[in-house]
C-alpha cells in the first residue's frame, strides 16, 4: 500500500441531489432553496449542491432526494420515460434511491416491485417510498435468487450488492474491508442474483445489471456468465454528456464476452462514485 494513500481520499464539497418531480418541478424547487446548485450535465433532474442540504424544509417535504450522482445512472439505462405503464422489478431495492427515481420517471404509472431480502433495510425503503409519494411501488421481502412473484416484468433493475469499491475515494473504510475472498464470494452471489432476475424477466425484456464496485470479477465476469448461460444479449447504451469507458475485456488471464458493450463510470471522469452498468436484453 502507498505510504501516503490518505491523500487520495476526498471529502467532496459538492454533493448531489435529485429533484423529486412527483412533488415539485425543478424550476419551482430552485426558487425555494437557498443553497448553491449546479446542473448535473448528463441528467436533467440531477443537481450538484453545496451547503446544508439535509436540514431544509424542502428536503423534509420530499421535494428532493439526496442521492450520489453515480447512483442516478443505472435507472437511466431503462426506457421508463417512454414506457411508463410497464412492470419493473427492482431486485435489490433498499434504501430506495433508484426505486423512487424510477417511480418519478414513470410518473407514478405502471408498477415497480421493489424487493429486498433484508428486513432492516426494507424499513429505509418504506420511508423513502412514502416520503417520495411513490404510489406505484409495491415492496416485497424476498430473496431475489429465488423470486416467487407469480409474474414477470418488462424490466429488471439488478443493482447488485457488491464490495462497493467504487466508493473507495470517498469512504476510507472500503480500503480496510477490501480482500479478494470477499470479492469472489460477492461474485458468486451476483451470478445467482442474475439467474433469479433472468427468471422473472419477460422475453424481449431488459435487465440492467449494475454495481458500485470496480472489480472485474463482480462486473464483466458476471456479464460473461450471464451471456454464456442465459438468453441475454448485452446492448450498447450511452447517456449524453456522461463520460464512460468500455468494460474490461481481459483480467487475470480470463477473457470476458460482452465487455465491449458494458459501461464503466470511473470516479475521476464525472466526479461520481465508480459504477459499472450493463444493459441486457432477453431473447
Amino acid at each position, binding site marked *: 500500500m502507498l505510504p501516503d494513500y490518505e491523500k487520495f481520499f476526498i471529502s467532496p464539497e459538492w454533493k448531489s441531489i435529485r429533484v423529486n418531480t412527483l*412533488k415539485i418541478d425543478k424550476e419551482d424547487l430552485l426558487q*425555494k432553496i437557498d443553497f448553491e446548485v449546479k446542473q448535473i450535465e448528463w441528467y436533467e433532474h440531477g443537481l450538484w449542491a453545496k451547503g446544508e442540504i439535509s*436540514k431544509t*424544509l424542502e*428536503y*423534509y*417535504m*420530499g421535494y428532493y432526494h439526496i442521492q450520489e450522482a453515480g447512483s442516478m445512472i443505472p435507472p437511466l439505462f431503462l426506457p421508463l420515460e417512454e414506457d411508463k*405503464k410497464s412492470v419493473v422489478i427492482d431486485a435489490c431495492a433498499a434504501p430506495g434511491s433508484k426505486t423512487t427515481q424510477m417511480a418519478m420517471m414513470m410518473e*407514478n*404509472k*405502471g*408498477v415497480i416491485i421493489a424487493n429486498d431480502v433484508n428486513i432492516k433495510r*426494507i424499513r429505509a425503503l*418504506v*420511508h423513502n*417510498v*412514502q*416520503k417520495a*409519494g*411513490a*404510489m*406505484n*411501488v*409495491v*415492496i*416485497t*421481502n*424476498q430473496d431475489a435468487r429465488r423470486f*416467487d*412473484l*407469480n*409474474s414477470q416484468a418488462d424490466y429488471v433493475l439488478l443493482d447488485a450488492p457488491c464490495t462497493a469499491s467504487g466508493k473507495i475515494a470517498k469512504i476510507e473504510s472500503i480500503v480496510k474491508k477490501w480482500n479478494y475472498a470477499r470479492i469472489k464470494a460477492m461474485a458468486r452471489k451476483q451470478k445467482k442474483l442474475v439467474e433469479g432476475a433472468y427468471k422473472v424477466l419477460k422475453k424481449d425484456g431488459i435487465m440492467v445489471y449494475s454495481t458500485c464496485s470496480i472489480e472485474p470479477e463482480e462486473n464483466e465476469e458476471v456479464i460473461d456468465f450471464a451471456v454464456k448461460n442465459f438468453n441475454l444479449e448485452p446492448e450498447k447504451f450511452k447517456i449524453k454528456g456522461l463520460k464512460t469507458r468500455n468494460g474490461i475485456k481481459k483480467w487475470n488471464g480470463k477473457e470476458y464476452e460482452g465487455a465491449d458493450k458494458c459501461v464503466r463510470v470511473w470516479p475521476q471522469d464525472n466526479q461520481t462514485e465508480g459504477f459499472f452498468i450493463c444493459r441486457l436484453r432477453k431473447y
Partner: protein
Amino acid sequence: MQIKKILNRDEIKEIEKIIEKNYGCKLNLKNLFLTGDEKIWIAGENVSTEFFSSVRNCYRIGIYFGKLKRNYKIKLSMEGATIVGKKAKRNVAIVDDKEAREFAEGNCIHKFECIDCEKNNFVIVKRNDDTIGVGILREGYIENLIPKARRMR
C-alpha cells in the same frame, strides 16, 4: 400486507365526502384500500392491489394516505395531506418560514393564520403552497402530529 378491504367506487366516494366535509375540496381518488387498523392506503392506478396482496412476503403496496377516525374525520399522513392540501379550502393553517420549521421539527406552534378551522379537528399546516404536515387545532395552538421518523432532524 394484510388488506382488510379494497374499496369500491362507492366506498371511495365516502372517503371523498369525508375529505370534502373536513377540507372543503373535491378529489377524484382511485385505488384505495383499508388495512385492519382503519388505515387508508393509496396505490398507483396500474397497481393491482388484489394481485399483489397475494404475493408472498408482500410488505407494502402504495403509500399510507390516512386513518379514519370517529365523527366523520380523517387523520391524513404527510403524503395524504400533500395530496389534499393542494386543494384544501378549510381546516388549513398558514404559517411563516420560522413556524413551518418549528412544526417540521415536531413542535407545537402558536403563530398561524387559520382558514375556516374547526377547534379540536385536524388541520393541514401550510407554508404558502407547501404542505408541512397535519396537526390538531387546540385552544391557541396547533398540536403536532408529525411522526418522529418523519420529522426534520
